[in-house]
């Protein structure tokens, strides 16, 4: 973990986030409120533009009355907490076997061509950070990426570049499969289970 919070003011939950945090704490027994460390870190990460600073670790530790090292253990264990600042569009590209076979390498190249940076880097304009992740469980629609909270599936380099361009303009492209599919059904129409209650 490096760097400190970009804000000069000490980190505190906003009023809205405080409500969310308190709600998260109520999900656990009163004497087990420390179990809420994960949701609280997530809420704090979202408030802090996508990353967890030392300040946040200390704040959450104090909030839940637990040793700061225990919070840091959780924050470093789970890959979904970012311990360094990330750009507004946080791209997680899947390069596990199914996506790789379906062309994730081309997506990385497309990203590099568009944003000018590669895996583990942030573009110079500060619009994109890309990291490599393991399987996100959307293999039926591979290759795919996750950008912030949304999945973009059935990608080709062209479709991916279009998404990146839309994001750069400040708009949010429609998530989900970018092909003609709406889910993970066969592209050429159903080949089995073609009727409801039928004989096949």
């Amino acid at each position, binding site marked *: 973990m490096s760097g400190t919070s970009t804000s000069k003011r000490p980190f505190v939950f906003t009023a809205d986030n405080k409500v969310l945090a308190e709600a998260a704490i109520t999900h656990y027994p009163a004497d087990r409120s420390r179990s809420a460390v994960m949701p609280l870190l997530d809420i704090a990460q979202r408030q802090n533009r996508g990353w967890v600073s030392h300040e946040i670790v200390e704040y959450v530790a104090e909030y839940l009355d*637990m*040793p*700061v*090292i*225990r919070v*840091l*253990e959780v924050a*470093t*264990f789970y890959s979904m907490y970012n311990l360094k600042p990330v750009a507004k569009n946080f791209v997680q590209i899947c390069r596990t076997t199914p996506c790789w076979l379906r062309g994730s390498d081309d997506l990385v190249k497309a990203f590099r061509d568009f944003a000018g940076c590669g895996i583990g880097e942030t573009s110079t304009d500060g619009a994109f950070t890309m990291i490599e992740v393991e399987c996100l469980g959307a293999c039926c629609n591979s290759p795919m990426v996750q950008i912030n909270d949304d999945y973009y599936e059935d990608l080709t380099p062209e479709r991916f570049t279009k998404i990146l361009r839309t994001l750069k303009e400040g708009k949010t492209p429609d998530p989900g499969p970018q092909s003609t599919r709406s889910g993970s059904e066969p592209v050429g129409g159903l080949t089995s289970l073609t009727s409801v209650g039928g004989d096949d």
Partner: protein
Amino acid sequence: MPKLTIDGVEVDAPDGATVLQACQLAGKEVPHFCFHERLSVAGNCRMCLVEMERAPKPIASCAMPAGEGMVITTDSDTVRQARRGVMEFLLINHPLDCPICDQGGECDLQDQAVAYGGDRTRYEENKRAVTDKSMGPLVNTVMTRCIHCTRCVRFTTEIAGVSEIGMLGRGEHAEISSYLERSLTSELSANIIDLCPVGALTSKPYAFAARPWELKKAESVDVLDAVGASIRVDARGASVLRVVPRLHENVNEEWISDKTRFACDGLRRQRLDQPYVRRGEKLEPATWDEAFGAIGERIAASDGKRIAAIAGDLCDGESMLALKDLMGKLGSPHLDCRQDGAKVDANVRASYLLNSSIAGLETADAVLLIGTDPRREAPLVNLRLRRAWLEGGAEIGVVGPARDLNYPVTALGAGTDTLTALKDGKIAFLETLKNAERPALILGMGALARSDGAAILAVAREIADLTGMISADWNGFNVLHTAAARVGGLDLGIVPGAGGKDVPSILDAATNGEMDIVYLLGADEIDMSRFGDAFVVYQGHHGDAGAHRADVILPGAAYTEKHGTYVNTEGRVQLGRPAVPPVGEAKEDWKILRALSDVLGHKLPYDTLGDVRSAMVAANPVFDEIDIVSKAEWAPFGTAGALGEAAFELPIDDFYLTDPISRASVTMAACSRELSGGTEKGTGTNG
């Protein structure tokens, strides 16, 4: 009591035991790294695999509860192969740097790799490297060697009570670290050096000093606090290189405090290695005869009533008895072993002991601390209190300054008024004590070492009686001493005789010129400016406060250099043994007094250590019972009287600098600077 069959041998394991412990009961060695009987089970090193009948694969015996009818095999081909496999994995990232590793020769991984590992590696990739972490002035880290057993994490969290180190990251990237590499703040932190099964955490002050097989080992006891932890003193040649704990379930288990472990470098600095006599303004080297002659001259010119003696905090019983006998022969009643002026009553043994015993404190369910900070005064007692809270849910109340003790306490108030209010039932904590099954109180020197100490002792006794702390099988009235010599001194009656003066009165008399000679036996914790024109004889081992004021210095032996009898705060008589000879011309302390008595014409009646010890037994039979704590009889003590208004002040501000040895220690000075926020003081070189 589940019954297991282990390699064909039937074993009854205690309830709650693990398969690993059952195997050990059956006399089978099961290799392991992460398992430690005093820590929670982690089950992550996988070295303890054994075969269990009807289990499809080997089981981790440390994490498997022993069950009725289990059939375990610990030395089948499968088990051997599994261990070899685990060892191969452990060695994938462990460097093969044993020749330059401080753990070499006492390393679990090294030993077990020889016994259970393969003889070659199949791993050709690069090993991972981990940056070393800072953990303070005591613990050296070489984190590449870490095998992630997490013993250090569990010890600091569970036993020491400071959650300061953890395992960050995971898998290939897991690293042990403190938060932002801050120093550990526990007084017990260095025990993780012993716990670490590899060379990842080693001793910083002892780094590259010696190999274990070069050391001469002496089993002794610690004197730097009143707990009397069992220690092993490792020496090479004439210098003590390190102190490590010995197992003693009833005193220190297998832990020792950082001061006990690391103050030993103070034994090589600021030592008094020959007699000195003051000539004019200057202390000049002298022979023993000259020094004795100077003392003899003064004593001959004086009268017993104008001679006083004060025994210090590190004194052994033998020398204190010799001092008492000598003073008796000189006709002086002015004798005291309570440098801090503690108003303890030497007549009733129960009034000055930790009656519940150190191990017994674990079972207390409500504890009242009065003017004491056990964390700094006796970290090993504090550990028991922490366990009483952690495992027994004990409620702990504090009268006096409430410092962070590593467990939650209820701060009741600052001083005597709180104590009175508590006794009168105006504070609810009295009910807590009354309702408790095993209530206890701990009276510290912060409450006793003041002019109204005797009255406070009486109030504490009243509270003990009022809340039912004394019963047939439990005595919860406890005094926590800070000086290793104190209980031994009280047992030997090193207190003023008829018409005699105690320490504050001796100081007053000396200031007013009513005292000709003051004999300091290792006494350094008193205000040396108050001796006025008195002739001060200092017998001790360090050039500390006493030696600076002295007119004659007689060089004595430190605790690692002599046979000594010490009685710890619970009344346990223990023997210290020499690891090295005294430095220079220094001698064992009782021998100095014996030789001096001859010069003075009052020859003491003992010539051998056996003679002195017999005399000690004659003076008090407790000295015949080595390592036994006998129950002290509950009898009236304390003097009811007016209580002062001042709040209690704790006796120890800086845990790391409490006595002549730790004040001379470079390591302790570094700890004080870094951890107590103290300034380096009292190494003696700066006056």
